[in-house]
């Protein structure tokens, strides 16, 4: 009996471990919300997370919780707010966070707008029914809400009416009272199914369209988003037509024109897709219905979510979920997240409509021309193929049926976050919160996106629903993620969780526990191999994902995703999922771990480790040191004793010193060797070895492709980091090498496969870089699946000593790469340290390691003057919007003396950091 109790207790502990994130209770003693959470809003300035419920829930019908709160605070203390909350929006009378919450209270048929004053919960502003009127002056109900800040006032937008002929947009200004700011007679500005009476009035129908009769359904506004900086409201909706040549559009914009608002198109009225083009994302023209898909009679555009992105390179994009579809009941775009280049200065599409157009994604943001196409020089992509596909592919859930769109979306910095809760995990659906970050060319134009990566810790495999995120929010200040979901899978979300930092007390089954046991003397490096990486999967394990962790003469392998049903590993005590492999005695500290596939045999792969004593490879004990053929579990070949870590045969003569960086493109591996013998000078080398079935044969292809004092690289140049980048747009997306040094950044002018010591360009020659960081080189879905990345961050030495030349600070540089010869350019030009408009920080404390998902940015730091301090700081690129004038310090880490690396584990949704005693979780 006692044993049974112990087993039950251990089981309970293990179960608890699955719910790593902290649940934020409705109130003390009540964990779950009493009613389903129906709406959410997030104030990034204060870090407050607001929710509303779909039925009366007392004071918690509307509630909020702050960054450090473990319980919500009920905001609906007044009876009139204790009801169904269907829509919610934050409004602010200042630039410093929300002051009011606009609410749609009472379920259906609501014609009174209620706005809660956050400084006085008894003060509820109201716009009466006679001010909620449609485009023809009839009192109507309202539906969507959006809000924000506008010229020292709060601003709220409502979509009113559901009749296809007279619905529209209303605006209310929030001060001590609400003031209608819409237009003439306070009638809503028209956003209905009418073809614009004035060319380009923002309606769903476009030029050439002839009659409303050919609309199959009422047009629907799915989403509205107000951008404080652009002072523009963007609306996104669904519309369908079955009449040849009818043109429908899913996005409009609303701006102020004097005291009133005006709705207008986001592209000139005469710019439209041809009828044989069906993939212009937000606009489509019906065809002749000759059963050719391109010419389908039925065309519909469904934009479910819309947000704006201001990139670190100061470019604007509209991020949308959805797109154009052909055939009735076809919803292939529900899992499409797309970026549309937006120029807020482009000419107004109608008089008084205000500037701003969707433009081509090229260097100049060229105005679109008729006929509109997706690709090509004047198309939406602006010649940058696939640059508008966020995630590089569709989001990780099937997009076939209506309802399979994202549940929530948030843009922070250069990163798009979306969540999916539509269906439980299986081979088609991978619910959770996902992110993808933009990568730029030398003009700061987006030319690619990182692969979708999970950002909220996955709780389990297909057995439950905890990953099905109805709502979420990413807090880039303190690096947390909020999530709202229904663990029961019934779309009755009552649970709010928030990730936390965790340094101890990991569950027994967790990856962290295994690592802290086996790498208790330090975890020096790691390598995440996301799902889809060639060579690590098999027929029964198409979803395989692995992570390698380097320590002192050992490497731990973890399988983080497996099977073909999007299963996420939760039990790392299983030998299938975790294995420690020692390097030979005397190998020294593993400073870098690498992986290479073999492009000649996609089932073959190789693991490499760079140590203080040279280059090691994980190879067969017998034979000719061949690579492995596919991976299944960590309890099967090659992890069954037939392989081991061995010093790379023959390479000893070519690599005599420590190895500090390894990269591979499947044809070659590239290895940075440090010179530790020369006195009075220093020589770093970059070696290239051709990948061969027999590792022993690789040494025959050896070449030194970069060396201090040879070619354009000055003598005594220290190679501090090395990355492979893809020159998007070049032939076969050729790959180039980037080296960070004490003398700037060197970029290979020739492809990595052919580069010689003569083929290097120096950029930012006056800077010295301590290290570089890049997003993971994640595989593309289409061949050659060689991994795409064309963005790096350089951590450079900087001087904040007021001309004393101490260079005891750091700054971040972000580089974009030109297609073709991969010339690197600082993007943004002033560096990447602080995008604040006023008094930006130019220098940070000394930094060794940097991590960013494009939005959140963490860096290890120290100040030698401090005795006790936290080693980690957070500093998003636009700190102003997070109410930050200086980096955020993590007090939870004051006992962590060193952090060697920070990286996300793509399959698990956690962020780990390597320490002297193993790992800690920064997102758990």
């Amino acid at each position, binding site marked *: 009996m006692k044993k049974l109790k112990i087993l039950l207790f251990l089981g309970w502990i293990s179960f608890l471990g699955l719910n790593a994130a902290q649940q934020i209770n409705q109130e003390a003693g009540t964990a779950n919300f009493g009613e389903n959470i129906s709406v959410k809003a997030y104030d990034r300035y204060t870090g407050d997370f607001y929710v509303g419920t779909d039925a009366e829930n007392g004071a918690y019908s509307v509630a909020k919780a702050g960054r450090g709160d473990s319980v919500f605070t009920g905001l609906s203390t007044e009876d009139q707010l204790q009801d169904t909350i269907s829509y919610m929006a934050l409004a602010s009378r200042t630039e410093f966070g929300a002051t009011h919450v606009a609410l749609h209270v009472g379920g259906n048929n609501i014609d009174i707008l209620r706005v809660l004053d956050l400084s006085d919960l008894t003060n509820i502003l109201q716009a009466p029914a006679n001010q909620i009127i449609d485009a023809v002056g009839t009192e109507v109900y309202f539906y969507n809400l959006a809000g924000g800040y506008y010229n020292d006032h709060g601003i709220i937008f409502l979509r009113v009416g559901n009749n296809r002929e007279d619905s529209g947009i209303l605006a209310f200004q929030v001060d001590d009272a609400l003031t209608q700011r819409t237009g003439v007679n306070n009638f809503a500005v028209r956003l209905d199914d009418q073809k614009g009476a004035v060319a380009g009035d923002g309606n769903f129908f476009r030029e050439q369209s002839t009659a409303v009769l050919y609309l199959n359904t009422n047009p629907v506004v799915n989403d509205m988003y107000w951008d404080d900086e652009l002072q523009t409201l963007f609306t996104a909706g669904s519309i369908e037509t079955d009449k040849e040549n009818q043109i429908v559009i899913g996005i409009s914009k609303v701006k102020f024109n004097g005291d009133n608002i005006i709705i207008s198109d986001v592209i000139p009225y005469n710019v439209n897709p041809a009828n044989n083009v069906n993939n212009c994302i937000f606009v489509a023209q019906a065809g002749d219905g000759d059963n050719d898909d391109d010419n389908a009679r039925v065309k519909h555009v469904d934009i479910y979510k819309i947000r704006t992105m201001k990139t670190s390179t100061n470019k604007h994009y509209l991020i949308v979920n959805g797109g154009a579809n052909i055939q009735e009941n076809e919803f292939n775009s529900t899992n499409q997240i797309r970026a549309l280049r937006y120029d807020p200065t482009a000419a107004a599409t109608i008089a008084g409509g205000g500037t701003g157009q969707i433009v081509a994604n090229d260097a100049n943001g060229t105005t679109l021309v008729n006929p509109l196409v997706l690709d090509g020089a004047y198309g939406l992509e602006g010649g940058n193929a696939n640059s508008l596909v966020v995630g590089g592919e569709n989001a990780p859930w099937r997009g076939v049926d209506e309802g399979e769109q994202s549940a929530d979306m948030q843009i922070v910095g250069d990163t798009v976050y979306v969540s999916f809760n539509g269906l439980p995990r299986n081979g088609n659906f991978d619910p959770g919160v996902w992110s993808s970050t933009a990568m730029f060319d030398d003009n700061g134009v987006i030319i690619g996106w990182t692969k979708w990566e999970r950002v909220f810790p996955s709780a389990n495999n297909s057995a439950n629903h905890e990953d099905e995120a109805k709502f979420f929010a990413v807090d880039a200040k303190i690096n947390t993620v909020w999530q709202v979901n229904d663990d029961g899978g019934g779309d009755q979300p009552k649970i709010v969780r928030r990730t936390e930092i965790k340094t101890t007390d990991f569950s027994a089954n967790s990856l962290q526990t295994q690592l802290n046991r086996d790498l208790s*003397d*330090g975890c*020096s490096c790691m390598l995440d191999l996301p799902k889809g990486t060639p060579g690590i999967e098999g027929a029964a394990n198409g979803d395989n994902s692995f992570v390698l962790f380097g320590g*002192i003469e050992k490497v731990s392998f973890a399988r983080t995703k497996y099977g073909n049903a999007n299963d996420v590993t939760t039990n790392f005590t299983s030998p299938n999922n975790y294995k420690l492999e020692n390097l030979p005695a005397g190998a*020294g*500290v593993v*400073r870098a771990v690498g992986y290479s596939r073999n492009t000649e045999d996609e089932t073959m792969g190789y693991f490499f480790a760079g140590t*203080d*004593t040279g280059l090691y490879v994980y190879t067969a004990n017998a034979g000719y040191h061949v690579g492995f053929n596919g991976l299944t579990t960590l309890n099967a070949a090659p992890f069954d004793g037939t392989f081991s870590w061995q010093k790379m045969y023959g390479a000893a003569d070519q690599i005599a*010193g*420590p190895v*500090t960086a390894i990269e591979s493109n499947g044809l070659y591996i590239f290895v940075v060797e*440090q*010179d*530790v*013998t*020369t*006195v*009075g*000078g*220093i020589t770093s080398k970059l070696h290239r070895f051709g990948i061969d079935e027999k590792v022993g044969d690789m040494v025959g292809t050896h070449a030194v492709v970069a060396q201090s004092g040879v070619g354009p690289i000055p003598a*005594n*140049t*220290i190679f501090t980091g090395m990355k492979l980048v893809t020159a998007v747009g070049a032939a076969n997306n050729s790959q180039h090498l980037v080296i960070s040094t*004490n*003398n700037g950044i060197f970029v290979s002018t020739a492809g990595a496969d052919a580069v010689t010591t003569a083929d290097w360009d120096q950029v930012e020659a*006056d*800077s*010295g870089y*301590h290290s570089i960081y890049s997003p993971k080189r994640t595989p593309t879905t289409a061949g050659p699946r060689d991994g795409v990345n064309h963005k790096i961050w350089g951590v450079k*030495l900087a*001087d904040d000593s007021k001309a*004393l*030349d*101490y*260079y*005891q600070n750091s700054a971040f540089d972000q580089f974009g790469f030109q297609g073709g010869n991969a010339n690197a350019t600082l993007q943004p030009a002033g560096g990447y340290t602080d995008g604040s408009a006023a008094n930006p920080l130019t220098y940070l404390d*000394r930094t*060794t390691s940097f991590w960013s998902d494009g939005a959140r940015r963490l860096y290890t730091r*120290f100040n*030698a003057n401090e005795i006790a301090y936290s*080693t980690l700081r957070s500093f998003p690129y636009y700190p102003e919007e997070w109410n930050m004038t200086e980096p955020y310090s993590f007090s939870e880490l004051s006992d962590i*003396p*060193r952090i*060697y690396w920070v990286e996300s584990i793509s399959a698990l949704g956690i962020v780990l950091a390597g320490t*002297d005693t193993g790992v800690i979780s920064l997102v758990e």
Partner: protein
Amino acid sequence: MMQKKKLFFLIVLLVVTSGLLAIDNAHFYKSANLHKKSTVGWFDELEKYDTLDWFTKIDFNYLYGDSGSCWDKNGHSAPLLNSTGNYDMLYLMENVPVKPDFQHYATFLANAQIYHERTNSTFGQLKFDGKFELNEVNIDLRQNLVSGFFLEGHLPVRDVSLKNISYNDMSPETGIYNKNMAQWRQFKNQLDVILQNYGLNSATKKYSQTGLGDLSILVGWQGIKENKEDDTTRFLGLTLKGGILFPTGNKDKTDYVFSLPTGYNGHWGIPLAVEGEIGFLGWLTLSAHASAVFFFDDDNKTRRMKTFTKQQGYIKLLDGQAEEEKGTLWHIGADIKFDHLAKGLSFLVGYSYNRQEEDELDPKDTTHFIKSVVNSDPLLEAWYMHVLHFMLDYDFSVHMQDSKWAPRINVFYNYPFDGKRAFKTDTIGGGLGVDVRWKL
């Protein structure tokens, strides 16, 4: 009983009037020589010639000493050049302007070492060792005037050298930050280049300097009260003197990591001394002595100074002008002398406590140097040394009772047995002296 009280009073008087070393004698790098003046010839024993009008004493001695160890800042035994503890290279560049530029490979490496801070281990620490050698000649002249007054001069000549300088890497053998880490190995390889960038010679370069020490000229008075009727207490003596110490010695060299001056590094001084003697039984003399040298500030001295509190050791990359307030040097001591035990042979055993208070630097360049940081340097803190002195000498005057002059010879050994922030340099030597009574 009364006599005992007098004796106790005399000893107390000597102690409370003790000051600093009266001449260029004690240094942290060597044991002090015997502070007591050399034996005075007895000749015919008609009187104590110590205070004879116009009596002249001339002494030369030579001594040699070496050491491979020191007492560190905690008073523990340590390698010679490691008195401050291991040199923490992680902070070497802290608050130091980069030279020639921050991209220079050696500077870049040095600057990067700070990135390994807070390793909670000995990573990045070097333990320095070496050997110190000293050859010293001392010239002393005492010319009595009248009524016990006298003039005294002292001039040392020294050859000091530091050689066999080396260091051990104290970084751990294991751990992520260990002695095999590439960046650390590269730093060590380029250490001399880094030092060169800042105008320093190699850390292991031998240092040697020969030159005068600091000349001192003093005026004093000595009084002796003889009591020939008392077989027990035969005499009481008191000597007081004071003068000027001239900075004739060579200063240390700021382009050497390890450098020593031959004197007190350019400071003028005011030496004061007192000595009391009591003679018993005609052959036993007890003496107590004390001295002090009060140094004048040097208001414009080039010194290598700390730029960061956690720096320790002799390696300091940045130099600058500073006003140096040199700590007062003082000693107290006592001797037992078995006087003319057999003919002219005497034997002396003595003890002295020698101490120099902490130096203080006031940097002129307050942009790069912070006074509190500069003065946190353990090398500026007070040092002390306990020394036992042994001497045998032979006074030939007992064989030349009718001569105007007589020679003396001696051999001596000075053994430092405890100390703090001081080299364990024992010295051995011999001397030749001449006493001249101009008028028989």
